[in-house]
């Protein structure tokens, strides 16, 4: 560690439901080194100034998806955002937008989790296979069809980025639809039709107006906007096919 520590001002949106009527900002002066992340800045505050500052974190390596915050108004993973990039200006951290604030930087994710659960995020085999038969084979192309959509870490930055979710919390939203698409595109899965009911529902893809910011903020290059919009086309096809053939399209 170098001797001459620099100081950065961190402005934190604080909210304690038991004592605050509404959120308010507080400023802390935090000494930092160039390798310190915004998360470490928050930890510094908790360790040294106020143990009641509340936020989620774990892995510190941008993979567990816990530490998302609004950093100067942009949803980011605080563990891979560095204080040095903001110094000497003040940095403001707030709970992820569009979610209810539970306390300080912690938001209520229960709605998001319900959405994840609702999309049937598991393989419903097209052809059953026993363990003795070994693995399913997947060509490089079949693999490429879905692999991008498997890399979502459920950080919900895309929800904090999507105004349509902010306006309508029932919207299934980018990450959950990306995961749904991941299973639909997997050659081992055969349940795309079952999942269509949700895709095409009022909570489904047509809430999206192609703002596209979800994909801009996604730290894992999942491109959820793409998943959502491809499924609009799929849902529209399904909608019209319904009229053409009794079998085509779901219910």
């Amino acid at each position, binding site marked *: 560690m170098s001797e001459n520590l620099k100081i950065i001002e961190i402005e934190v949106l604080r909210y304690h439901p038991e004592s605050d009527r509404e959120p308010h900002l507080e400023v802390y002066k935090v000494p930092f080194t160039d390798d310190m992340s915004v998360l470490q800045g928050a930890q510094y505050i908790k360790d040294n100034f106020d143990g009641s500052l509340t936020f989620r974190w774990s892995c510190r390596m941008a993979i567990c998806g816990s530490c998302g915050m609004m950093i100067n108004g942009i949803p980011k993973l605080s563990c891979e955002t560095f204080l040095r990039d903001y110094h000497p200006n003040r940095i403001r951290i707030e709970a992820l937008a569009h979610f209810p604030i539970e306390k300080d930087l912690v938001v209520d994710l229960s709605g998001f989790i319900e959405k994840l659960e609702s999309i049937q995020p598991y393989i419903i085999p097209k052809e059953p296979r026993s363990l003795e038969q070994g693995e399913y084979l997947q060509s490089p192309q079949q693999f490429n069809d879905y692999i991008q959509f498997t890399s979502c870490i459920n950080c919900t930055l895309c929800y904090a980025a999507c105004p349509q979710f902010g306006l309508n919390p029932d919207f299934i939203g980018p990450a959950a639809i990306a995961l749904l698409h991941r299973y639909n595109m997997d050659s081992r899965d055969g349940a795309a039709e079952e999942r269509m*009911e*949700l895709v*095409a*529902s*009022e909570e489904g893809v*047509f809430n999206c107006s192609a703002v596209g910011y979800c994909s801009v903020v996604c730290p894992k290059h999942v491109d959820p906007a793409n998943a959502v919009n491809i499924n609009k086309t799929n849902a*529209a096809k399904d*909608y019209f096919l319904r009229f053409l053939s009794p079998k085509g399209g779901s219910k």
Partner: protein
Amino acid sequence: MKSGLKRSNAPIFWGLFGAGGMFSALFGPMLVFITGIAVPLGLMLPANTMSYAKMMAFAQNIIGKGFILAVIALFLWFAAHRIFHSLHEIGIHAGVGAKLLCYGSAFIATVISAVVLLSLGF
């Protein structure tokens, strides 16, 4: 899977929106240039480009009818859909009213265009 999901009827509007968006992106600028700038100013194009005779001929031709209807109706369906969404986005939740106003106008315009085009004969 949640039960009691209601199927969205957005595909109809979304389809028209998409078609109109694409149509206006491809042809919009040039159309504006021709009808709103070049012809009135007599730039580039022959002076009689939009004369009554030529336009009647165009509007009586089946392809011409189709093109005119597509331009007016699709442009309006596209715009109606976006405007309706934008109203919602800036916090005007007029709900059914806004919906009726936006899509209703597009619908009426479509009907008027169709009626006029039909009345012009073939």
